């Protein structure tokens, strides 16, 4: 089945009309405060962009203002997720997609590294089991 993003519709913006609705700037201020809190107190925070009433162009404008930094990552778990540090150190974008490539969550995370990037204890325990099995160390 054809997906809606594959349908070739191009929205043309007449010259002089608005390309965003001014919602990016307040979020930039929220990010600024969150980054200050993280720097001073180590408090991590996360903003769910899908819960915000963005108008056309607002999300693009926010991502443009944030820019791209030094690190880009992809995570392959239940579909591909893209994670990148923005031009502002400590401000990350986490873009979760499902197996069909559709977005299921878009978050701004403020911290040293997004939480989902860390190896998880449950997976580490599982990894030890598999390693032992591979090395023939597993108890019968």
């Amino acid at each position: 089945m054809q997906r809606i993003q594959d349908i070739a519709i191009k929205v043309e913006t007449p010259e002089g009309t608005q390309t965003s609705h001014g919602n990016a700037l307040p979020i930039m201020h929220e990010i600024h405060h969150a980054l200050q809190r993280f720097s001073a107190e180590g408090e991590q925070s996360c903003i769910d962009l899908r819960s915000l009433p963005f108008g056309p162009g607002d999300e693009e404008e926010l991502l443009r203002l944030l820019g791209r930094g030094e690190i880009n990552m992809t995570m392959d778990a239940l579909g591909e997720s893209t994670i990148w540090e923005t031009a502002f150190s400590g401000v990350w974008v986490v873009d979760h997609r499902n197996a069909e490539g559709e977005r299921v969550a878009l978050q701004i995370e403020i911290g040293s590294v997004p939480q989902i990037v860390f190896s998880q204890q449950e997976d580490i325990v599982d990894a030890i089991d598999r390693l032992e099995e591979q090395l023939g160390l597993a108890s019968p």
Partner: protein
Amino acid sequence: MADDRKKLSMTLGESLRQQGVSRRGFLKYCAATASMMALPPTMVPAIAQALEKARRPSVIWLSFQECTGCTESLTRSHSPSVENLIFDHISLDYHHTLQVASGDAAEAAREAAMHENEGKYIVVVDGSIPLANPGYSAIAGISNLQMLEETVAGAAAVVAVGSCAAFGGLPHANPNPTGAVSVGEIIKDKPVVNVSGCPPIPTVITGVLAHFLTFGSLPELDDLGRPMVFFGQSIHDRCYRRPFYDKGLFAETFDDEGARKGWCLFRLGCKGPMTYNACATAKWNQGTSWPVESGHGCLGCSEPDFWDAGGFYNALSIPDSDLTRKTGYVVGAGVALGAAAGALNRSTRAKAAAQHETVTIDDLDKKS
């Protein structure tokens, strides 16, 4: 069958691990679930902890006087793998449109699900229930009223999906020939959650089911029985065009300068100020857009009796002649005016319902 029973007894965490999903994958799933339930990302660890131990609840879906639009909305929802994951983890034991079984076998599946999950299953209803004559709508010779009462008797909770089940909807519209009523007018001894909309937003339907799966309880409800997280704020208060309303900038027709510049659609009949729903944030069609973003006012489809609330293209809230003067006060006091508009609207709607106003092609021509 034995596999199904085993799957039913497994927790969600066990089931996902068995499918080879890593902890990271699980946390991603929890992040998507939090977003779907309109909960803040800080809730993800709590959601992960709860979902880890959650067990698949049995769901019985009953369809009465309805158009199947609600099921269409759900099955064509924009994040199928998350929804599929949810449905992998509830046991949808009866649904006319989706189940393979028919006739006696279908009814036997419903009875078996009720018997095996006594006191724990969820009943989802779409469509209203005719009380004038049971013959107006019956399934397998059982009237809608009888099937509802019989099925709900052993349920943990009822979710009324769509404006027909929640408020009577189109069948209930004046003159209501079938004597259609909502689920809540019949069921008084079980919790009933109204997920209104014509159709409801798919992620709102799954969000309510996910809430029950995650926390084993129902979300907080408003005075019309709708989940506050999705229906707590009006379309108008969450609308990205709201700043234009506050500045008094309105589209007057569907092709004027205001319409092209994306100004407020209030004067073209937008029912945003009196409508409570999550369209402005959840959006439709893979998050592509929603009615106001595509240039058409809100119809108010998640509110009771929206069919009888007068013409969709009539700005009911404030008489046109007063609008310019009133918008003069709007800057900085938009919320107050929104509330006043809502109050005015209720009386106008009551009048419209009483007079059963209709819209003709000529009326539409006059507006455009």
